[in-house]
C-alpha cells in the first residue's frame, strides 16, 4: 500500500535522526573525556546516512520495502585529538600539552538542533500519511 510505504519512509527518517541525536549526545557527554576505553582521548563520532532509493518508483519492484534513508553506521573520527597547553593537568605530557577530545560543543549543539527539527518534520510527515489513509477509509464508511 502506498500509504504504508510513506509511513515506512517517514519512520526511517525518525530512526535516522534518533541515531544522530544519540551520537551527538554521546559526543557532548564525552567532550572532556581525556582517557576513554582505548586509553586515548575520546574521538568524535558521527552517523553515516545514505539514501536507499534513487526514485520513488524503485519501490514498486516486488518485495521492495523502501526505507528512504539508511543509517550506514557510526564512524569514529580519525582526526588527531586536539592538544591544548595545560601543564598542570594530571594527564599533561612532558611538553605540557594535554590531548583532549576533538569535540566542538557549539557545533554539536547546532547539529542537535538541526537533528531535532528534522525529527519533528518527519513526525509531521508521518502524521500526514496517517491522515491520508484515514481519510480514504472514510469513503467506505
Amino acid at each position, binding site marked *: *500500500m502506498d500509504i504504508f510505504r510513506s509511513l515506512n519512509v517517514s519512520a526511517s527518517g525518525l530512526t535516522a535522526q534518533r541515531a544522530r541525536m544519540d551520537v551527538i549526545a554521546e559526543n557532548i557527554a564525552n567532550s572532556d573525556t581525556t582517557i576513554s576505553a582505548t586509553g586515548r582521548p575520546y574521538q568524535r563520532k558521527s552517523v553515516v546516512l545514505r539514501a536507499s532509493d534513487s526514485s520513488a518508483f524503485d519501490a514498486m519492484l*516486488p518485495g521492495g520495502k523502501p526505507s528512504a534513508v539508511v543509517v550506514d553506521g557510526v564512524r569514529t573520527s580519525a582526526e588527531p585529538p586536539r592538544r591544548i597547553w595545560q601543564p598542570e593537568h594530571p594527564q599533561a605530557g612532558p611538553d605540557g600539552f594535554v590531548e583532549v577530545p576533538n569535540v566542538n560543543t557549539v557545533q554539536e549543539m547546532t547539529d542537535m538542533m538541526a537533528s531535532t527539527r528534522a525529527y519533528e518534520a518527519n513526525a509531521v510527515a508521518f502524521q500526514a500519511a496517517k491522515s491520508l489513509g484515514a481519510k*480514504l477509509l472514510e469513503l467506505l464508511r
Partner: protein
Amino acid sequence: MSDLRIGSIAPAPITTTSPAASASAAGSAGFGDALARALSEVNELQLKSSEAAVAIASGEQVDTAQMIVDVEKANISLQFAVQVRNKLLEAYQELMRMQV
C-alpha cells in the same frame, strides 16, 4: 450508452441498446441483453473488489485510492442491482394482480 436517469428508480427506464422499442419481442430481447450485461458488470465489480481485499491483505504493492474506490463502486452497483430487482419484482406482481 445513453445516460441512466438517476431519479427515482422506476421499472421502465432501463436503457436498451436496440433503439427501436416498438416491436415488443425485439424490445424484450434488448432488455434481457441489457439486464444480463448489467448483472455481469456488477459481478465484475464484485470480483475486482475481492481482488483488492486479497491484495491488501497479502501485502502487495497496491494503489490504495483506486482500490478503495473500486470497493465502493462494487457496493453501490450491488445496491443498485438489488433495487432494480425489487422494482422489477413489484412491477411483475402488479401485472399479475391485474384483472384480465
